[in-house]
């Protein structure tokens, strides 16, 4: 006497009752004969066979399979039309131990989500994509898909798909196989039991590829849509075998499982106590300056020149030193379109009071490193202000008598020092000498923090000293 053993039944990772479904909770929502049901069944069996149910995160698309999460007793995430590869990318990267599976139709994957799938594949994101190609938009009622065949009459190609109007059927598996990233790509069919069993093996291999951490895997399935194709289910299956398969050849397209090494696991994160160091948060200086009561001061500085003159760095150094000196400061760069045309300027404020607006509209210090900058801003300088100009003399039509103006050939001085790049630091020295805005020791310390490399620091120190000397010899002294 023999016994009958159950060899095939509903997979364990499918819910016994589809509680998430509103009605008819014991049936899927798919049409009779629809390939989605078969694809679900295959995926479910493979998940059971591999024993990975608890680790699986299934990403449901938009399309007829939008409700895949009704059925699979796994972690579920439902996403926007076509975006499953992007969502899967982050899911997997967030939890590398999870098994991430996307499920997408041809409209979802090959049309609206074509950019996302291409890049996920190219990055070889370590997840598994199931691609159900029924050559039509099912859910929205039969519009043309990128995979619809030439001549197909759909609701949006009522006279048949033509190459002239709609281009060619898109061969996704071949296309993605041309990339260097993906590891395993196979096209299967759901056109008869033989194709279906072959497809199941492909799904298993794809998931094993992911479990080994090798990278991107995809299984395309040519799938019947009897409803939209207006065929009975048996004819629709035949259509898969006899009409779709010749255009979209079934078989393995790419297998790099032997060549690709598993991804290295990420190192464990550092302890939280390390964060301040990693984030380069400031530590208390050992030689913190004693807080002195300072007389009120208020510098509204505009620095302007052309790109490469170190305008922004000069401003930053003044602001850094101002901060160290206990002043409130702000530094605002111009970064708009003018940056592209080569001019550059920044607004710096130093104040013993709270800095309200970081924008300097009426500067009391203008540092103009070229003539156009001088012309552009000279009228905005506040009465009693200071102008430092990079040149031998101030152009006569720019001379104002209600302000202090000093021309110095900063660029030539820098050349003399052997580095045209330090002209801005010569200016810094001149500015400090002219205004006494900041203690030199404080500026020196800020410079040591901002300037990278001993060699540069050394040149900068010489440049600053030179700037101070040049300015002192001119007898201009301004207190703002």
């Amino acid at each position: 006497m023999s016994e009958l053993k159950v060899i095939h039944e509903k997979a364990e990772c499918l819910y016994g009752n589809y509680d998430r479904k509103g009605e008819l909770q014991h049936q899927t929502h798919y049409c009779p004969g629809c390939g989605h049901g078969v694809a679900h069944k295959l995926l479910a069996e493979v998940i059971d066979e591999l024993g990975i149910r608890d680790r699986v995160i299934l990403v449901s698309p938009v399309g007829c399979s939008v409700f895949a999460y009704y059925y699979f007793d796994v972690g579920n995430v439902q996403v926007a039309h076509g975006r499953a590869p992007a969502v899967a990318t982050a899911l997997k990267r967030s939890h590398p131990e999870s098994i991430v599976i996307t499920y997408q139709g041809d409209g979802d994957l090959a049309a609206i989500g074509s950019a996302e799938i291409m890049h996920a594949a190219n990055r070889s994101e370590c997840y598994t994509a199931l691609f159900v190609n029924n050559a039509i938009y099912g859910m929205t009622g039969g519009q043309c898909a990128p995979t619809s065949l030439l001549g197909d009459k759909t609701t949006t190609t009522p006279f048949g798909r033509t190459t002239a109007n709609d281009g060619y059927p898109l061969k996704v598996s071949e296309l993605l196989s041309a990339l260097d990233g993906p590891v395993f790509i196979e096209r299967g069919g759901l056109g008869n039991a033989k194709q279906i069993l072959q497809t199941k093996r492909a799904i298993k291999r794809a998931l094993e590829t992911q479990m080994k951490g090798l990278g991107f895997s995809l299984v395309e399935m040519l799938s019947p849509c009897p409803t939209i194709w207006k065929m009975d289910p048996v004819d629709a299956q035949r259509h898969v075998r006899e009409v779709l398969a010749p255009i979209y050849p079934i078989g393995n397209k790419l297998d790099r499982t032997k060549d690709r090494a598993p991804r290295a696991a990420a190192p464990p994160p550092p302890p939280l106590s390390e964060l301040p160091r990693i984030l380069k948060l400031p530590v208390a200086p050992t030689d913190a300056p004693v807080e002195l009561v300072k007389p009120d001061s208020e510098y509204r500085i505009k620095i302007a020149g052309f790109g490469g003159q170190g305008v922004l760095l000069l401003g930053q150094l003044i602001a850094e030193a101002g901060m160290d000196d206990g002043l409130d400061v702000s530094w605002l760069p111009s970064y708009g379109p003018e940056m592209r045309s080569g001019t550059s300027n920044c607004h710096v404020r130093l104040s013993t009071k709270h800095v309200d607006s970081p924008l300097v509209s009426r500067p009391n210090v203008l540092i103009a490193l070229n003539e156009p900058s001088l012309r552009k801003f000279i009228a905005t300088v506040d009465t009693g202000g200071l102008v430092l100009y990079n040149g031998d003399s101030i152009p006569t039509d720019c001379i104002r008598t209600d302000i202090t103006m000093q021309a110095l050939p900063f660029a030539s001085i820098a050349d003399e020092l052997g580095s045209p790049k330090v002209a801005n630091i010569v200016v810094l020295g001149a500015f400090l000498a002219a205004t006494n805005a900041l203690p030199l020791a404080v500026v020196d310390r800020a410079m040591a923090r901002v300037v990278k490399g001993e060699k540069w620091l050394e040149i900068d120190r010489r440049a600053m000293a030179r700037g101070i000397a040049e300015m002192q010899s001119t007898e201009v002294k301004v207190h703002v």
Partner: protein
Amino acid sequence: MFATAIEEEIDIKGYVEINTDECKGCGLCVEACTTKVLSLSPCLNRYGYHTATNSDKPCNGCGLCFYVCPEPGAIKVFKAVN
């Protein structure tokens, strides 16, 4: 999971059980079964489908009907083991 075979038919190789609540009568199992075990019932189930039903032809437990069936729980296949 085991079920006892019908005792008289000792040479039975397989058996399929159709869940008539899940079956949508698509007929793919009927088409797939090489030994013509299955057919669509002339009767309708409560949703209005002609569900699949077993005939008196012997089933060999090959499972092909199971794989072509789009409803995950519509078919259960039993196979004889000694």
